């Protein structure tokens, strides 16, 4: 799926778009991404002034506001060689929705299309961009994981196998299936704020599957889904937790 021409990111500097949620809620996930990339010898930089991709506004129908925010992104990343995003959802926004948002802006559209072509979701960057599935990682103790496919990563970017391959190659990690692993957790950004009861009903079903899963940790590629699922799990006093794939992989880095 996606773009026709995707220039290879091999040998290029990786510009980290850490995302707004990772920035203020899960900075350790950003650090994990950096450590993993540097472990592979990638030169990582963090362009200053980055905030949000604009998705909350865009998904709500507020195109003008979203474009306002997206312009900040364009300014900050205009000279990036390759952009790495630890979120399938934000990567989708940049790759699929920015070109829609700026379709009538002939001045910015070429830059938008270029940035879309060099933007990679984190696992996609490793596996499809750099061609690495074995990061040479090993956990200190055995763990069982299951991967939850976040909607945008799976259905807009065609991802899922990438994360599983990466996990399978981690020493001491066992991967099992989560029932309905491709079913939405009910977050949907402002959807969960606007229609909290429906969103909550969807979440309860997800939690049921997580509780029935033999894995002690559910792995995701998006901290938005993670926030939603962990919020429900902790309220339900479940011992299970959801972790971002970068944090799970970074656990296996040589000490």
């Amino acid at each position, binding site marked *: 799926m996606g773009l026709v021409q995707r220039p290879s990111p091999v040998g290029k500097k990786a510009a980290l778009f850490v995302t*707004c949620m*990772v*920035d*203020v*809620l*899960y*900075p*350790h996930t*950003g*650090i994990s991404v950096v450590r993993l990339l540097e472990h592979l010898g990638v030169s990582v930089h*963090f362009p*200053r002034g*980055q*905030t949000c991709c*604009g998705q*909350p*506004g865009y*998904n*709500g*129908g*507020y*195109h003008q*506001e979203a474009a*306002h*925010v997206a*312009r*900040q992104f364009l300014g900050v990343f205009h000279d990036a060689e390759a952009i790495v995003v630890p979120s399938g959802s934000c990567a989708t926004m940049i790759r699929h929705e920015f070109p829609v948002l700026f379709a009538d802006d002939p001045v910015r559209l070429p830059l938008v299309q270029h940035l879309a072509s060099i933007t990679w979701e984190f696992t996609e960057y490793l596996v499809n961009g750099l061609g690495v599935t074995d990061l040479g990682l090993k956990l200190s103790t055995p763990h069982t994981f299951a991967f939850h496919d976040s*909607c*945008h990563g*799976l*259905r*807009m970017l065609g991802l899922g196998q990438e994360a599983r391959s990466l996990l399978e190659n981690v020493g001491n990690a066992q991967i099992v299936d989560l029932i309905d692993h*491709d*079913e*939405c957790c*009910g*977050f*949907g950004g402002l*959807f*969960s*704020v*606007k*229609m*909290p*009861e*429906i*969103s*909550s*009903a*969807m*979440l*309860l*079903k997800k939690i049921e599957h997580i509780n029935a899963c033999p894995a002690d940790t559910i792995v995701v590629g998006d901290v938005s889904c993670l*926030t*939603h699922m*962990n*919020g*429900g799990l*902790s*309220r339900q006093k479940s011992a299970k937790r959801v972790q971002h794939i970068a944090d799970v992989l970074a656990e296996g880095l040589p000490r």
Partner: protein
Amino acid sequence: MTNKANEFASASRSAIQTPEMVAAVAFATNSAAAKRNIAFEVNGTEHGEALRQQAAEARRRALRKLPELLEQAEARMQANGIEVLWAKDGEEASQHVLNIARQHNIKHIAKSKSMVSEEIGLNAVLETAGFDVLETDLGEYIIQLAGETPSHIVAPVIHKSKAEIRDLFMERLGMAYTDDAAEMTRFARRHLREGFLKADMGISGGNFIIAETGTLCLVTNEGNGRMVTSLPPVHVALVGIEKVIETLDDYATLIQLLARSATGQVMSVYANLINGPRRTAEDGGPERVVVILVDNGRSKIYNSTYAEALACIRCGSCLNACPVYEAIGGHAYGWVYSGPIGAVITPLLTGLENATPLPHASSLCGKCKVVCPVDIDLPRMLLDLRHDLVAAGHAPLLWRMGLRGWAMVSRSPLLFGLVGWAAKWGSKVLPKHRTIPVGPLGGWSKSRDLPEFAPETFHQLWAKREKGNDHEQP
């Protein structure tokens, strides 16, 4: 049918609090979705996907040529002896049906399933005019007995449990107690058979009209469609103008897709190709067949950027795949069409202002697009409709201000940092379970703990790292 789409918020809340209904819907949609997936794999994944692309192409080609295909269909149907009437809206369509019924002094009307007839509220019109109307699709029959409306495009009674249907039959028809679904069906069938034999007029919908042959296509599983269109002397079909397809070959593709997508069958039990009234040498079939081509808002969609939505073949697979539909059922959507396709076409057919919550009734998970047999980009349309809502001023002031504030903050790294810092300190006063009982996060935090802010942002960690404070690194 009255449009109550703007009551979606309260209707969906009450739906969630009806566990028996939700369980019935979840069970039925999950099994339908699973059967659909198996049916698509029957001849291998590639075959299923190729079929889907073929169908998508056939529907898009038909839409591109719609005006000329409609003319061709009209001419060919007329040549076959089918009368063709046009109706710009529901009122005109109902008037046509009333006129025909009065011409023939009709008393009893038997109907097979037609969503267009639900759309235009035909039964109420006919009953008010004194006609006896019987729905003969088992699901529709149950709905009619209960005085309800269908909650699913294909399975109208999906929201009812077997026990509820049994109680209804016992109460309304005097059925003896049974727990056996087959026995209940046999009982209903005896009643329906009387209706078929009594009817002097049959009303059906139409799944497709083939332009090149002038054929009305009707796909059913119960055989009631065949009874309704062949026993009574008059047959009237209500068909949306978008249902025209170009060739018999296209029909061959589409019927395979319809059966697979709607019911997980490789082929439906009955597929009627109606080419006109009884011919002189035949001893069965109606003497008069009338096809009413109904617009009722469709040409407005055709001339908009949402024309692709008219490719829909009403299989209901997007409903079966949708986690939102699964959680609330179909009635909460407030009108005839529910689920993702309902969330798209209800505002388009009835006016954006009459269905403002529907485009938001989706987490945009994208499953509907994946299962759509004609590849309609429903999530994209929901996004576009949300934008139309904002552009047309159908956005609550608080949301508008909130989003404007968010945009201002996210445009400025300095403000972004400041607001993040303020939120972090503000959140420290949150009670156990991290709930904010009032305000926009009230509903969210009712069932979910709010996340905790990190002591330091990534921006701060990175700045330290650049200064060489290596010991601060995790």
